[in-house]
Each structure stands twice: as C-alpha cells, then as structure tokens.
C-alpha cells in the first residue's frame, strides 16, 4: 500500500523507539526528567481510559456517538503538553487528549456526543476552542486568531489540529496562505492517522502531507506520532518559533487510528486487521511504559496507581454523564443571537404557548 512507503520515510523525527529506547536527533533534543515522563504517561493512560469509557457509554445508549482517539494519545498529549496556558488551540472533534492537556474537564466533551449541546465548554476558559465538525474551517479561524495575536504584539502561539483527510479541503490551503503572508504565529498540526473514515491517506495525497508547507515558504516536518517525546519536542520547537516571530509551521504526526472512525463505523468493511496489529506493536503508551521501566523511572506501584486513577476518572465520567440533564425546549432558541432577534423571540413564545396548551390537554 502507498501509505506504507510514506511511513518509512527517513525524515521522520523519532526520539523514542517502539522498544522504548531514547534516540538522539540532530535538531530536536528534549531534556526531560522522570517526573515529566511519568506525567506524560499518566496523561496518555487517563486519556485512553476516558476514551474507552466514552465508547462504553455510547454502547449503553448514554451517548449518541463517540469518536475515539485510541492510538493517537502520543500525538495529542505530546503536542498539547507543548502549549502554554496563553496559547490558543483549535481542535477538530477527536482531540480529547489535547483537551485534557488544556485542563478541560473531559465530562464537558461528552455533552455534544450525548446530544445535550453542540459545545459544552467555554473556549475562553482554557483557550481551547470548541470542537468543529465541519472539516476545514477551523484552520482559517486559527490563522485569523494568530493574525490578531500578531497585531496585539503578544508572544502567544496558536495550535491548529487537522487530519489527513482534512488536508484536502480548500480551507486548509487558504489558511496556509493567510498564515504565511502575515507570518502569523500558528502551528498547523496534522494527525495523519492514515484514514479518513474508510478512505486511506493515499486517496488524499501522493506525498507526505508535511511537504505542503514548502510550497508556502514555511517549514514542514514529519514526526512519529506514536512517540510522545518527539511530538512534544517538535511542537514545542514550532510554537517557540511562532512566538518569536518566525511565522507558521506545519507538523505532520504519523500515527494510526486504532479504532473505528466513530462508534457508528465498522472498519472491518474496508481495512485489514493485519494493519491494525502492525500498529499495535507501535503503541504509544506501551512505548513510554517500556522506557519508564527500562530506565527504572516507574514501578508496578506507579502503574497500578495510574490505573486506579483511571478507574476513578471513568467512574466520575460515567456518573457525570448519567446525571447530565436534558436541555429545556427553550434552549433551542436561547443563543441564536447575542443581541436578540424579533423572529426568534416570537417563535420561542409561540412554541412555549403551544407546549403549555398541550400540557393543559390541548
């Protein structure tokens, strides 16, 4: 398969081998102590546990849908942990791990998948924008936001996520144009998980996606997306570049969507299990675990403790979701406009009257 060739490109930045060994890289170094390493491990495990719980909750009918990040923990935790609180992040809809690094309560991510809202957190609280289902637009929002940062003279960076499928949308190219012409402080982070629902990456592009950047005059780099250290180092570098006025950059993190596209999807219809098994060997969590164990940075007690924390998190999520109230009918009308709108008010009133009349027995 074409995608294979792309995987074995020599230019892939890797700082941690699948066996858990640290690798030196001429450009990207990472000085990181045991505490921080354990922190990344914990982030990934908790994110995965949360994600698994969401899948279960969907099966139980508590959620209408769930888009699992299984397999992409390193790409998301590594890049997310590279951000500073004042940075601003634009996700698509699968960035649960990034949300975690931004301090967004995972429970809040579930509202839209349960169907009680279209976006359950305040983007301004953690500088983590709402999930955007339509593929393409948020990259332009990121470029515009970064243009604003530039005008403010702030040393803030913007991090904008997209997928391999998304790379085909015209909006992505336009975002590259605006960002590069303005030299705006935005890092475009592509999680190439090799699939866009059933469509493999080679139906979107015949060369690695990071190469797009050169055509706009900014750097593009490919990183091992299952290597949390490489993702952290490369993203940190790119964000720092952006903050220091050197403009945009494109990072392509090569990873793999281990699960279905979403709970409604059945990947056995379109891909071989062998491919999945191959990627299991490159599991991002296992890799860091091996490293921690080999280096003596973590022991069974630590792993047990993290696992236990995961269970507590899962419990909280489970209970939180079940307790999540349905919105009242008026919510449909409530935030359509900031300054009000005659028609919306009229429709809301008419609907309320209708409902009331109905309750009185029509």
């Amino acid at each position, binding site marked *: 398969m074409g995608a294979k060739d792309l995987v074995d490109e020599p230019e892939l930045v890797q700082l941690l081998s699948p066996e858990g060994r640290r690798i030196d890289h001429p450009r990207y170094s990472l000085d990181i102590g045991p505490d921080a390493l354990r922190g990344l491990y914990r982030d990934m495990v908790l994110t995965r546990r949360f994600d698994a719980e969401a899948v279960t909750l969907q099966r139980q009918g508590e959620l209408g849908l769930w888009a699992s990040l299984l397999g992409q923990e390193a790409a998301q935790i590594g890049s997310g942990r590279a951000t500073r609180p004042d940075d601003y992040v634009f996700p698509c809809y699968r960035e649960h791990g990034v949300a975690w690094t931004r301090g967004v309560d995972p429970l809040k991510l579930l509202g839209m998948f349960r169907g*009680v809202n*279209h976006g359950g957190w305040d983007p301004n609280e953690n500088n983590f924008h709402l999930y955007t289902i339509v593929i393409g637009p948020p990259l332009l929002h990121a470029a515009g936001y970064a243009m604003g940062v530039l005008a403010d003279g702030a040393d803030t960076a913007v991090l904008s996520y997209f997928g391999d499928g998304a790379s085909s949308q015209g909006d992505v190219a336009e975002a590259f144009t605006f960002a590069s012409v303005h030299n705006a402080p935005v890092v475009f982070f592509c999680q190439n998980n090799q699939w866009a629902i059933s*469509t493999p990456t080679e139906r979107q592009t015949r060369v690695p996606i990071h190469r797009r950047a050169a055509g706009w005059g900014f750097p593009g780099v490919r990183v091992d997306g299952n290597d949390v250290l490489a993702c952290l180092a490369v993203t940190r570098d790119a964000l720092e570049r952006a903050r220091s006025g050197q403009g945009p950059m494109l990072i392509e993190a090569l990873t793999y969507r281990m699960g279905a596209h979403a709970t409604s999807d059945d990947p056995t219809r379109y891909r071989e299990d062998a491919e999945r098994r191959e990627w299991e060997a490159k599991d991002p969590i296992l890799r860091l675990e091996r490293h921690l164990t080999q280096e003596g940075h973590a022991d069974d007690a630590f792993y047990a403790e993290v696992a236990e924390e995961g269970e507590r998190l899962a419990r909280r999520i489970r209970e939180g979701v079940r307790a999540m109230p349905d919105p009242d009918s008026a919510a449909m009308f409530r935030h359509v406009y900031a300054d009000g709108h005659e028609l919306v008010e009229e*429709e809301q009133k008419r609907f309320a009257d209708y409902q009331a009349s109905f309750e009185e027995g029509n």
Partner: protein
Amino acid sequence: MVSQEMTLAGALNASLRRALEDDPKVRISGEDVGRLGGVFRVTDGLQKDFGETRVSDSPLAESGIVGTAIGLALRGYRPVVEIQFDGFVFPAFNQIVTQLAKMHARSLGKVRLPVVVRIPYGGGIGAIEHHSESPEAYFMHTAGLKVVSPATAEDGYWMLRQAIQSDDPVIFFEPKRRYWDKAPVDTSVAPAPLHKARVVRPGTDATLVTYGPTVRVGLEAAAAAAEDGTSLEVVDLRSLSPLDFGTVRASVEKTGRLVVVHEAPVFVGPGAEIAARVQEQCFYHLEAPVLRVGGFHAPYPPSRLEDDYLPGLDRVLDSVDQVLAY
C-alpha cells in the same frame, strides 16, 4: 409487474446499480462511497461490481467533488456524487450556485451538465451538529438547478433514475431518517414523471402539502384527523424545483385550507413560496390563511431537543385545527 419490498436505501442502491449497468457514462463519486458503500450504504457493493474508476472514493473536499463532476460532465460523463451529510454541502456551494446551475445558460445551451448531487438530509436520527439539516431552500432559490426529494422506496428508485437521465443538474435530497423504511417497489414502470406532485391521500376539509421525510408525518396526521372526523388531503410535492403548483392549487381549490409542512426552517423557506403563490392564485378559494409548520429560525438543535424542533404529528394537527377554526 415486478414488485419487491425494499428499504429506501436499498431502492436507491438498486437504482444506482441499474444506472451503472445501463449507461457506461454514469460515474459515482463522493467520500467513502467505494469500499464502505457510503456511510448509509446507499452505494454498497457498487465499487466491487463496477470497479474503482466508475465508483470512486473522493478526497475529502466537497468543492472538489462537485467541481470535478462538472469537468467529467463536460467530457460527456453523467456523474452522480454523494455529499455525505446535508451540513457538508456548503463547501461545494460556490461550485453549485455559480457553475453547476449557470453553465447551461452561460453557454447558451451548448453545454449540458447532467450531474446529480445526492444529499442525505433532515433530522430525526439523533446525530451531532451538521448531520440533520434541511438546506433545500438554498437550492430552490437558485435558478438552473432542479431539486427533488423522494419520500418512498419506489420514488427513490425511480426519481433517482430519472434524475440521472435528466440533462439538467439535479439536487437529490434523500430523507435519511426514512432510509430504513420498507415498501414495495415496482422496478418495471415509473409511477410518475420526475417533477409531478402526488396526492397521497385524498381528502376534503384541508390540504397538507409536504415532501420527503415529513410525508409520513402528514399521512399519520391525516389518519389521526380522520378519527376525529376530519378529512385531510395529503400532497407529496416530490419535486421542489420545478414545483408542480397545479396539483397544489387543485387541492386548495377543493379544500380551501392549507398547511405546509417541512423540516427546513420556515423563514424564507419552501413553505413561504407555497403560501405566497397560493394566496396569490387561490385568493378567493382560501377560507383560512395558509399556515406553515417547519423548522425554527435557529440552528438545528442538539439531538435531545430534535423532537421539539421537528414538525411532528402534534404540531401539524395543531395547525390543522387552526386552519379549520377559520
């Protein structure tokens, strides 16, 4: 007569299969229409049987999907493209409105664009944002497009065949919450021309005009009203552009009362046009104002509220009561 039970999705699939068999120029493309057979399985098995050239997975780019379909049509093909969900048609809006709709006129008739854009639309399936919308008004307002929507498996089968045979671009709206509804389909003979409305239940007291997913709601309302002794006539428009206004007028002239039902937002929506024309052309026949039951001037809500948002049986009957009260 060869009549078979089919779901709407199955009928559409059979229709596409037949079109691929009959005309080597027919091409199917869209996101995930190949191996997966589309997220609603409407193209299930077609790539396997007709090959990757004729049934091909597109890159994730709706403007590209419609834009390349136009190019293929210029080369003599008859593309049938799928937009995965209603809410994702907007990246293609420029290609549809400025190119697909206008090229025949621009070329003084020299260029024909027999492109079908299939769009699963409407709510009721408990989906997340952008997966439950009814954007048909945008396309109706656009000259150069034809806009249709089947409500039943048989219409799905035949209307899609007719749309593919049409030399005009057709926006083909498929009521996604009816994909799994089963009904007999006679594949031997078309029940009606593409752009004719149909009286699906005759009645005398008031008319319900609707199409697509809410035809069933209309029929249920008529059944409920009948128990109260009210006789409703239900018209399935089938075609939204052109609109078979003659059928609507005939019904309103008989009943004197009209309720239009659709999921699309009411404000500057399909029902506005119907109400405007009916009051103009049936002025002396109307015993009551035309009422519209449809979507609110608000984004389609989170799924837990969609039953409130969608025009259901009770809201329809409420409006029927109102027109009957005049």
